[in-house]
């Protein structure tokens, strides 16, 4: 490992260790900072996982409560985001199980789910409409594919997680993650063909 890479890895380790120490202390300032830092990524993951924005917002809050309660379980050896997504995933599955005994597949498409709202970044009215349509189209395409494929695709291509991190979050073997990505993209491609950015 060269010096730059070594410095990067050590820097990342010290940051994750600092997070782990703060979580053990239940440091509210650290939690405030983490909530702000991971707000968009976590909410987006929960929206696509649950297929419903209102439910995702509830789960967002519950996830941080669980992070507070079980922060001592984070060892600081892995990326915090990987652990956070795993916590969120378990909560979502628990929630879906309570909602319906079918659950793991209950993460699948929900016809009545609320549309997925894009970020309010104050563009023009026309841009807002276009953004909504674009987001709706992608949201509709995503919720129409099986939940396990959707989850892999979202974690990889939206959240930028590495394959082994996705395997950790989902508890699936690496080969299964690769296969889910491949199948998920194959299902999405015809649905999103020609989608404008």
């Amino acid at each position, binding site marked *: 490992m060269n010096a730059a890479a070594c410095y990067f890895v050590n820097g990342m380790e010290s940051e994750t260790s600092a997070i782990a120490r703060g979580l053990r202390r239940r440091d509210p300032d650290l939690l405030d900072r983490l909530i702000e830092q991971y707000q968009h990524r976590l909410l987006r993951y929960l929206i696509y996982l649950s297929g419903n924005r209102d439910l995702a917002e509830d789960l967002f809050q519950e996830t*941080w409560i669980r992070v507070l309660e079980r922060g001592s379980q984070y060892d600081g050896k892995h990326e915090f985001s990987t652990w956070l997504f795993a916590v969120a995933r378990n909560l979502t599955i628990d929630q879906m199980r309570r909602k319906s005994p079918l659950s793991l597949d209950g993460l699948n498409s929900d016809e009545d789910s609320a549309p997925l709202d*894009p970020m309010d*970044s104050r563009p023009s009215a026309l841009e807002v409409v276009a953004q909504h349509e674009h*987001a709706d189209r*992608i949201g509709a395409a995503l919720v129409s594919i099986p939940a396990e494929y959707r989850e892999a695709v979202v974690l990889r*291509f*939206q959240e930028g997680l590495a394959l082994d991190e996705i395997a950790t979050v989902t508890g699936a073997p690496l080969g299964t993650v690769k296969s889910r990505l491949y199948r998920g993209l194959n299902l999405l*491609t015809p649905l999103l063909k020609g989608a404008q*950015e």
Partner: protein
Amino acid sequence: MTSDIHERARQLIVLRGAEGFADAQETWLQAHLQDCDPCREYAEATTQVIRSLRSVPMAATPSLVRRTQTRVRQHAQLLRQHRERLWMVGVACAGIGFSAAVTLPLMWKVFSWLGAWAGVSSPVWETGFGVFVIAPALLVSVLLLTRGTHLTDEAGRWHH
């Protein structure tokens, strides 16, 4: 060219850019794409889908973030109070245990002397001693049961 080769090429297209994607795989893929129109189209379509996925600007609202931060702070405060209560209960138990260990032999002697002084038989003053020792604990238990214990919150949920 067999379909396995195209299948392999398409799997590599999806995994492109992932960690562990070897240079040799990239070289092989590039060579394949130069000769294979369907796989090249697949690669372009896949790239477009990935770009579309990354282009969705979905964000948490500031109010959600504020609500969450407030809730987390309140919950942290609740957990801290609970920990303090547990600590106090622990200290109280230790104090009571120590006090009991010190005073019980003394009280036994006092009851024995009182029994002799009053002229009652041993089982009688021993029973009195038993009631004297157990009564405070019984009283506290009844009080805690009627009021709810201090180890639960307002909703009666047990914190651990």
